[in-house]
């Protein structure tokens, strides 16, 4: 399984991903999928500061990610693919890109319009609908902040 983790986490590259999930799945490559970041070298520089030595991160737009997703899946190298928000995830899932893929919700924090779903997941009604669309496209959506925590499937979450 070459896309070892496909995760929605606002913080993108941070301790839980690098130390928590990284120590669990030993990735060869991190890919950040975000339209704004793909075009912003100064922000990319700040994001990669927390990476341990030897691990690199690529920043690609959603459209590029959709084109390359198939290749990542077939690549023998292990990928962690990170998205900042549910909106990008829905765009990535267009055309059935994520059919059969597992989607992990890791950290979507409080903001205006979002309501508490899990301690580390706050969603607006719009985002909830987008998640349902992603699930309908054939992806398996669940939440889990760190590898040792219980997995909460979308069906078991309380609608915001």
């Amino acid at each position, binding site marked *: 399984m070459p896309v070892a983790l496909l995760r929605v986490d*606002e*913080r*993108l*590259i*941070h*301790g839980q*991903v*690098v*130390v928590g999930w990284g120590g669990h799945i030993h990735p060869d490559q991190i890919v950040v999928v975000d339209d704004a970041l793909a075009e*912003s070298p*100064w*922000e990319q*520089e*700040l*994001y*990669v*500061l*927390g*990476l*341990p*030595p030897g691990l690199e991160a690529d920043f690609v737009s959603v459209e590029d990610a959709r084109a390359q997703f198939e290749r990542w899946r077939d690549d023998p190298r292990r990928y962690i693919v990170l998205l900042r928000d549910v909106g990008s995830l829905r765009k990535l899932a267009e055309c059935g890109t994520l059919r059969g893929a597992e989607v992990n919700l890791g950290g979507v*924090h*409080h*903001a205006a319009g979002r309501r508490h779903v899990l*301690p*580390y997941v*706050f969603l607006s009604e719009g985002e909830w609908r987008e998640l349902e669309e992603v699930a309908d496209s054939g992806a398996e959506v669940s939440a889990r902040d760190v590898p040792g925590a219980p997995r909460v499937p979308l069906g078991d979450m309380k609608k915001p």
Partner: protein
Amino acid sequence: MKRISGRIRLALFLRSFAVQGSWNYQTLIGTGFAYVLIPVLRVLYDGDREAMRSALRRHVEVFNSHPYLATLAVGAVARLECEGAQEALIRRFKNALRGSLGSLGDQLVWAAWRPMSALLAIVVLLFGAPWWAGLIVFLVVYNALHLGLRSWGLQTGLREGIDIGNALRSPAISRWAHWASNTGALLAGLASVLAVSVFATGPTESGITALGILAGVALGYRVRSGIWVLLALVWIGGIVARMVV
């Protein structure tokens, strides 16, 4: 650009100790961050209640960082605010920085420096020092880095502003983490040998214990994983103890 006086720097430094004071799942240390920044905002928005209120509202948003390295973000954001940077830029800057500050701090402090300081205190106790000496050793060594990081972070953030990446990319932080975890492994070896050496009374046994300590020192620097060193040395120590009994 407005200057940030020494008095305000001191206020930021002191307030930084409370940065986790209102930790919560909604904003993480966001409210703490805003609290630390208040002295700077007061200078910038002196007398303008509405502007002050909206600045505070912007800064109580979600933020996260290792608590000691939060001063880097505070310093850099203070500089950006003083330069009159746009809200959107500051928001993007904080977002980009928070993950890195968390992960760097975890690697350096929680995973390396704290265990090393604790092991050093244990070794001091095993050498027969009174309990309060071990306590003092731990507090002094641990807090030397802790306070140093807070103060360095604030100065560096204020100096570099948005170019903070240059300071953080320097290999010094990872070198420190590497050095601290090596030293921790060494101390783990030393501690386990000392723990069993209480059984060694005669000259031969003491000689073997001394060899064990030397082996601990050598292995500690060679093997990065403290656990292997620990196992190897408990094993040597066991032999020593059996020879005595």
